[in-house]
């Protein structure tokens, strides 16, 4: 691995990320929060400066090796979360909590360490929403879309970061694909802002909540999440946009281009819709004692099922107080996640579909030992190596989940808190049950637990193997960058 090449590429990303820090500075300026203006402006200047220094040894990125691609992606996400944490430190969080908060923002988790929302200015909440929005479609995808000279390397980076085992490109050039996806994403966000304002939510809250919804994030500027607005229409609008955020954006794009069959023909989307339907029905039945009114019950069931499944993590009710059978439905949804190519996290529906099919085929193979039984998706055979990748992914996912649960409970959390905090962070969902419920926070966990959960968010967002592969010793055998032979 050529460290200089990796650092200089990350430095380039950091420079541009610094510009994003100027947006909350303007918001803070508008609301007269002067300390935060300086914090954001200072962080922006710092990020640009550090990025410029890292960029000192400028290398063209045209022959990126695989390991370098992984290191750039994993390193960028880590470094950008540190940069994003600086304003939170200024605003009063300790460094561990601040990095937790910014990683939670960028990975669109939505788990918070803020005890009291009144301590923080509007610019800070806006910044949380912006980190969601940038992280939702992927920072690398954003850079690929806007940076002109990322070259061939951008393609590898794009797929190393991509969510799910798909490689559906919409256009031959990766840059056009990234741009198309970002345009759809921005368009849907704008649509939700308009809709929320139309039903009476203030503009500032509409923008923050819309960015958190489309990113499948979950940070709301309101301490009680969506519940705090007491606005059923806004909840329905959020339900619809959360559902859209959990679907594959490539399908949104194709539908907008006039392929009306794109959604119904996609097997993963059909499974997604089916899971939503079944879990909403179960919740409607189980929640009868909690919510007597049927229309309210349907709304809360749909809101919470979709919020957890798409890994958004918004709350229209404090679901940590629900009965156990309802919470069990939500816990099961936490292990599924959104569609591949969506803003959602988790193991992804397509992987679960493939694992289910593979398992069922094994049952059939017992009866027909000579049968030729390939796993199929969308009428096409899934190659063995892809299938193995999916199984290995899921094994590692469970391994990381188990390790995180053990550590968090070893440092004092109760079992439910440890389990749900781990899956909520690893799956980029946000809230869990008990102490880390939707109306609670992660601030009271042991600092070691918080560091582990921060790493879990990072590992979960980059789909486990991208990060874990970097543990291999051969990755760190550095090789000096040499000027290309002309």
């Amino acid at each position, binding site marked *: 691995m050529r460290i200089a090449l990796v650092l200089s590429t990350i430095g380039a990303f950091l420079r541009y990320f610094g510009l994003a820090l100027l947006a909350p500075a303007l918001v803070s300026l508008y609301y007269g929060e002067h300390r935060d203006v300086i914090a954001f402006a200072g962080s922006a200047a710092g990020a640009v400066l550090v990025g410029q220094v890292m960029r000192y040894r400028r290398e063209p990125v045209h022959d990126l090796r695989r390991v370098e691609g992984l290191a750039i992606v994993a390193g960028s996400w880590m470094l950008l979360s540190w940069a994003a944490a600086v304003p939170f430190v200024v605003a009063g969080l300790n460094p561990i909590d601040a990095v937790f908060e910014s990683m939670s923002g960028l990975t669109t988790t939505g788990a918070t360490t803020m005890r009291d929302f009144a301590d923080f200015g509007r610019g800070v909440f806006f910044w949380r929403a912006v980190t969601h929005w940038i992280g939702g479609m992927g920072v690398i995808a954003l850079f690929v879309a806007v940076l002109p000279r990322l070259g061939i390397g951008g393609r590898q980076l794009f797929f190393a970061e991509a969510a799910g085992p798909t490689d559906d490109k919409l256009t031959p050039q990766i840059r056009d694909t990234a741009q198309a996806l970002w345009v759809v994403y921005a368009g849907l966000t704008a649509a939700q802002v308009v809709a929320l304002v139309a039903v009476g939510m203030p503009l500032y809250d509409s923008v923050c909540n819309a960015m958190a919804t489309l990113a499948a994030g979950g940070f709301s500027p309101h301490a009680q999440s969506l519940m705090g607005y007491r606005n059923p229409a806004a909840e329905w609008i959020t339900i619809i946009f959360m559902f859209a955020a959990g679907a594959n954006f490539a399908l949104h794009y194709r539908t907008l281009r006039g392929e009306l069959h794109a959604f119904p023909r996609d097997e993963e989307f059909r499974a997604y819709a089916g899971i939503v339907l079944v879990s909403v029905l179960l919740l409607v039945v189980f929640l009868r004692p909690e919510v007597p009114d049927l229309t309210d019950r349907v709304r809360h069931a749909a809101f919470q099922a979709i919020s957890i499944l798409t890994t958004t993590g918004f709350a229209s009710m404090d679901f940590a107080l629900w009965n156990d059978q309802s919470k069990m439905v939500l816990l099961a949804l936490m292990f599924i996640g959104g569609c591949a190519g969506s803003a959602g996290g988790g193991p992804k529906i397509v992987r679960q579909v493939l694992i289910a099919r593979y398992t069922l085929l094994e049952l059939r193979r017992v009866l027909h030992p*000579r*049968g030729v*039984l*390939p796993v199929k998706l969308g009428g096409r055979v899934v190659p063995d190596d892809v299938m193995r990748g999916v199984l290995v992914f899921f094994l590692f996912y469970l391994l990381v989940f188990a390790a995180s649960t053990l550590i968090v409970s070893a440092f004092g959390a109760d079992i439910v808190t440890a389990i749900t905090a781990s899956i909520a962070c690893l799956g980029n969902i946000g809230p869990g049950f008990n102490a880390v419920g939707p109306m609670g926070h992660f601030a009271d966990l042991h600092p070691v637990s918080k560091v582990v959960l921060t790493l879990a968010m990072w590992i979960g967002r980059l789909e486990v193997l991208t990060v874990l592969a970097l543990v291999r010793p051969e990755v760190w055998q550095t090789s000096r960058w040499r000027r290309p032979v002309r």
Partner: protein
Amino acid sequence: MRIIIIGGGEVGFALSRELSRDHGISVVDTDASVRERFENLDVEFLSGSGTSAETLKRAHVDESDLFIACTGLDEVNMVSCAIAKGLGTPRTICFVSRDDFAGTDGGVESIRQHFGIERIIWPEAQLAEEIERIIAAPGAIDAEVFAGGRIRLLEFRLDAGSPLTTAALAALRLPKGALIVAVKRRDAIEIPRGDTRLSAGDKIFLMGTPEAVGQVVPQIHGVQQKQRAQLVTIIGGGDVGFRLAQRLDAASGVELRVIESDPRRGELLAATLRRALVLKGDGTDLELLESEDIGRSDVLVSVIDNDEKNLFASLLGRSLGVKRIITRVSRPANLRLFERVGIDVALSARGAAVGSIVHQIQGGRAHLLAVLEEGQATIVEIAVPPAFRPRALMDMQPPPQSIVGAILRGNDVVIPRGPDQVRPQDRLIVFAAAQSVAAVRDYFGTT
């Protein structure tokens, strides 16, 4: 007529034998050793390539009336047709064995334009379609469709308890639109009349519209058969097996298994078929057939490209208890043998193709639709001449051993009874015993 045949294989030989009595035949084959086979026939044999203009000129292609390309290679067949057309032959017939060409945009029409081919014959596809028709009619021994599916002909054997044996035909009140055109008793074909009484063991030929035939079928077998999915096992996933499997895979009410010995081919089958179970193994492997309980199958279709293996697999299936067995026969000479040893339906793709070409050449106004019972009976389509004087069927005396099964009038189908008229421009679907075909043709073909 002067006819040039490219390819001296099974099809080329069968065509030469059928046509050499009345026509001048030139056979072209690259393999000179094939010549021996043709020495007993009165044909000219030229050794050379069908795609060589020089060879074709030696065969006097410019003076020929018909050009038939039937080598085993699709590309050779198509190219030689194109060259022959360029050299001045008026009509070309091309054999193909894969669907690569059928799938091109514009279909047969575009192939006709670009390659100058008048008629494409794809024996494997025809065979697959025919097998599917037989499977789709549960209980029937044989099935044919005519007039683009508007008319159906089914062959049944009557059991002892069949309601059809309880009364004379006239008293059975079959639905309008269905007609029993023939009965086969003790190897003799007979055209039934109103007072004919059917008995157990008879083979009957039922013709009619699909709806009417569907009403009659439940009456044929006494006990009501319960509606469950038919279990079909196909042995051999080659051209015919694959095509048939694709068609049955899409049909409802069929549970399908395909046994294929080539692992790569098996993977292709499993990738393409949605519901079918593909098994890797040899169709003659008794252990496999037993462990997969093939004996439970309602239909066993053996379509390996090897007559010996097909026969063996079919007989294994029979001994395991399969109810109906359909087998492909490559060499038409084996057809009778197969049916004699207990195969329910033995079909030859090339045999049927040869039959249809021979008929096209010798048929004239009448058009052969099907040959039944090893040639004992035929179904012919006859165009009634424009000057024909309209008459009711009961006022006509058609030749013995024949019956008008259906009248096609524009888009209408009439399954006729006595008072129905035959009018000019009608097309008649006539069932006729082999010896009366010529008489039938003359009778309806003249005013």
